[in-house]
């Protein structure tokens, strides 16, 4: 049983992983076909992984409704929202436009999903500013540098900021847009590059640990 429960899954991860790595470096038709096939398979498996999340969400909200837990009425809206997208999708075969006309799926996407998702992220604008106000205490030189970089970037991207810059520092001959471009192209790139190289090393090492079965926490217990 241990063979079926543990060793075959570990063999799957190792064979799939090593063949994927090898396929990248072997310029042959077979390796290209293999990568294409694996991409297709991965799409299918990921789609079922989504189903796992969906069933889990529905099960959790069904439990709340069944138990009449606090705020159970809101759980109904999860199902309403789901149906508001899926029913039109079934009716239109997943098309948002037909002959230049917006379908019922296009309507649901534009007036329900898009309105909700963009507002949800837009609300974060207020919280980001509020958090920044509370956390931007310039206690050190490093914090000051962070503040200046953020401030110049925010200031330079609004017309009022550009006007203030031009009236105060216009004599330098440098527009705020030039300064922003320099920050983004030079010192920010240096910081980002260091982080990306670090992440890359970490990702490669973790991937090797997964392929060779050293890291297997994702398999759970037993």
């Amino acid at each position, binding site marked *: 049983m241990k063979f079926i429960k543990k060793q075959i899954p570990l063999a799957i991860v190792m064979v799939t992983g090593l063949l994927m790595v090898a396929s990248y470096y072997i310029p042959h038709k077979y390796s290209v076909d293999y990568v294409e096939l694996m991409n297709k398979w991965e799409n299918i498996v990921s789609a079922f992984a989504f189903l796992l999340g969906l069933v889990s969400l529905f099960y959790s909200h069904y439990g709340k409704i069944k138990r009449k837990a606090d705020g159970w009425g809101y759980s109904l809206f*999860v199902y309403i929202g789901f149906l508001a997208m899926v029913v039109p999708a079934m009716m239109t075969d997943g098309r948002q436009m037909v002959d230049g006309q917006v379908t019922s799926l296009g309507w649901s996407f534009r007036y329900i*999903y898009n309105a909700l998702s963009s507002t949800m992220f837009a609300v974060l604008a*207020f919280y980001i500013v509020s958090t920044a106000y509370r956390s931007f205490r310039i206690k050190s030189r490093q914090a000051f540098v962070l503040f200046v970089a953020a401030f110049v970037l*925010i200031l330079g991207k609004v017309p009022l900021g550009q006007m203030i810059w031009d009236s105060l520092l216009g004599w330098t001959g440098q527009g705020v847009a030039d300064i922003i471009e320099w920050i983004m192209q030079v010192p*920010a790139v240096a910081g980002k590059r260091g*982080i*990306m190289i670090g992440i890359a090393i970490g990702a490669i090492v973790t991937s090797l640990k997964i392929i060779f079965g050293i890291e297997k926490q994702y398999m759970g217990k037993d």
Partner: protein
Amino acid sequence: MSETWMIAGGWMAAGLTIFLFSFLYRDNPFFKAAEHLYLGAGMGWWFQVYLFNIWKPKVWEPLLSGDFFVLIPAVLGLSLVTQFIPRISWISRYGFTFMMGYGAGLAIPATLSTDFMSQIAGAIQPFTALATMTPMMIFNSLVVAGGTICVLFYFFFSVEHKGAVKKISNIGIYFLMIYFGAAFGNTVMARFSLLYGRFDDLYTFSGANYFYASQILLIALVAYFILHSFLGGKKTEEEEPAH
């Protein structure tokens, strides 16, 4: 879509937008309803994306045409659902290990070429064209290369950070702070552009052709808050003011 549907859409979008924004004042039933609706709509949207882009064309149609090879990933995928049955949940390992193997195998060459080699090349390459570079370009290239090295020193924990190493890693912190500041500034501006978009939509739906949807819904919500504070009065645990 008829004009009536467009007007109904305007009311729907304006209502949902205002309900979500109402959280800025305090938590309330309208926000919670819209929040749960978003969760369901998001799942519904991705469900139909997977249905019409993966399950139907990549599983169902090949099966109907006799290509039973797709049963392998389908069974691997279905194995994930056994997570809900504790007695046989180990079967889900087959699907998970496939995804992990694929992801790990793909990550090694992809990360090596894009995030590792390309970044090192990007820091070094400008120096191959020194003769054609202006003094400012040379200075910038030196700052990028030097800054990258300083940041790497900051993340290098195999030696104790003291003496020269500490000084170099301290310079690295400044480059990191500039990057974090720039990233923060960009995030703020991206969120604000979304905010302008929502305000623009609310402005559109406030027109006579939408029967003043934004104004009416906004007034109705304000009236609810006023009535609630006078009549309901008592603040429940769930309806804390937003911070």
